[in-house]
C-alpha cells in the first residue's frame, strides 16, 4: 500500500472521510469474506450432517466465530462425549489470544469497546491489520475484514446447514469432506519443517490412542506434542508466527 501518510485519528475508529488505501482494503476484505463464506458453507453442511441442529450450528458460528475451533467441536462432539469437544475447541482457539496481544497495540481498545472488538480477533483480521503500513490503515483493515467476514460467515453457515440437512451425507461423500477440510486448514502451516514433524507426531499419537481412550481424547492428547515441541530449545528460523488456521494464505498472497 502506498500514498501519503494520513494524520492519525484519536478515537480509534476509522475516519469517515476517505484515505488512499480505503478502496483497496474494502475490495480485499470482501474477497476474503467470500472465501470465508465458502468455507462456512462446508462447515454448515458438515455440522448438520454430523448431527448438530440448525440452531446449534448457527450458535457456534455467531458466538464462537473461529473456523478451526468450530469444526473441531463438531468433529469431536458428534463422535464422542460433547464434553471432550470443549478442550478441543478451546486449545485450537488459544492462538486467537496471541493475535489479541498484537492487535491491542494497533487498536488500543479501552473500556467496553474491548468487548466487541474481541469478537473479531481471528486469523484473517490479524493478518490484514498487520500487513498495513499506517495505524489508520491497520485499524480500517481490521474492521473492514472483520465485518465483511463475520457477515458472510453467518450467511455461508446458514446456506451450508440448509443444504446439508437436505442431503444424505454418506451418499454424497461428505465423510471425505471432514479430513479434507481439516487438511486445508493445516496446509499453510506445513511450509515450516518443525510444523511438519509436529503434524506427523500429532497424527501418530492420536492414532495410537484410538483403541485405548474415549473418542475425542486422542485429539486433545495431540496438543501435548505441540507443548513438547514448542518448549524445546528454539532455532531462529522457526520463530515467525505463521500458524495454521482459516484462510490465512489469502492474506499472504495479496
Amino acid at each position, binding site marked *: 500500500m502506498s500514498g501519503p501518510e494520513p494524520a492519525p485519528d484519536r478515537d480509534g475508529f476509522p475516519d469517515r472521510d476517505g484515505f488512499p488505501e480505503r478502496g483497496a482494503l474494502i475490495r480485499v476484505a470482501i474477497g476474503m469474506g467470500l472465501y470465508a463464506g465458502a468455507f462456512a458453507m462446508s462447515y454448515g453442511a458438515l455440522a448438520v450432517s454430523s448431527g448438530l441442529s440448525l440452531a446449534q450450528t448457527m450458535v457456534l458460528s455467531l458466538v464462537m466465530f473461529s473456523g478451526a475451533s468450530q469444526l473441531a467441536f463438531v468433529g469431536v462432539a458428534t463422535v464422542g462425549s460433547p464434553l471432550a469437544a470443549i478442550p478441543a475447541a478451546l486449545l485450537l482457539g488459544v492462538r486467537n489470544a496471541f493475535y489479541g496481544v498484537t492487535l491491542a497495540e494497533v487498536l488500543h481498545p479501552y473500556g467496553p469497546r474491548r468487548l466487541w472488538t474481541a469478537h473479531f480477533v481471528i486469523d484473517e483480521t490479524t493478518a490484514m491489520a498487520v500487513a498495513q503500513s499506517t495505524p489508520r490503515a491497520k485499524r480500517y483493515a481490521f474492521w473492514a475484514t472483520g465485518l465483511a467476514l463475520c457477515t458472510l460467515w453467518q450467511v455461508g453457515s446458514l446456506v451450508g446447514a440448509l443444504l446439508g440437512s437436505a442431503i444424505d451425507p454418506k451418499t454424497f*461423500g461428505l465423510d471425505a469432506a471432514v479430513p479434507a477440510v481439516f487438511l486445508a486448514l493445516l496446509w499453510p502451516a506445513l511450509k515450516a519443517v518443525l510444523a511438519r514433524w509436529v503434524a506427523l507426531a500429532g497424527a501418530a499419537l492420536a492414532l495410537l490412542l484410538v483403541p485405548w481412550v474415549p473418542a475425542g481424547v486422542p485429539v486433545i492428547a495431540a496438543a501435548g506434542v505441540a*507443548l513438547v515441541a514448542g518448549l524445546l530449545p528454539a532455532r531462529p528460523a522457526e520463530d515467525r508466527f505463521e500458524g495454521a488456521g482459516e484462510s490465512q494464505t489469502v492474506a499472504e498472497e495479496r
Partner: protein
Amino acid sequence: MTTLWVALVVAALGTYLLKLAGLSLPDSVLNHPRVQRVAKLLPVAMLSALVAVSLFDGGGRYVVEWRTLVGVAAGVVALILKRGFLVVFLVAIGVTALLRLLT
C-alpha cells in the same frame, strides 16, 4: 438443555474469552518466545490429529475406507494446485461419491 448444548455454549463463550484475554492481558504475560511457539504449534498438532482420526477411527477401532481415502487424496491434489476451500471440499466429496456410485 442437553449435554451437547451445554458443551456448545461453554466452548463458544470460552473461545470468545480467549480472544478477550489477548486484548486485555498485559503484554508481558503472553510475550515469551516459547509460549508463542507452543501457541503456533497447537493447531498444527491438533488439526493433523483430527485428519488422522476422521480418516481411520471407526468408533474405537481402526477402519480403512478406501473410497474416502482416494477422495481426500484428490483434495490434497487440489491443495497442491493452490485451490480454495470450496474446491478442495467439492473435489473430495465428489470423488468419494463417484467411487461409491461406481463400486
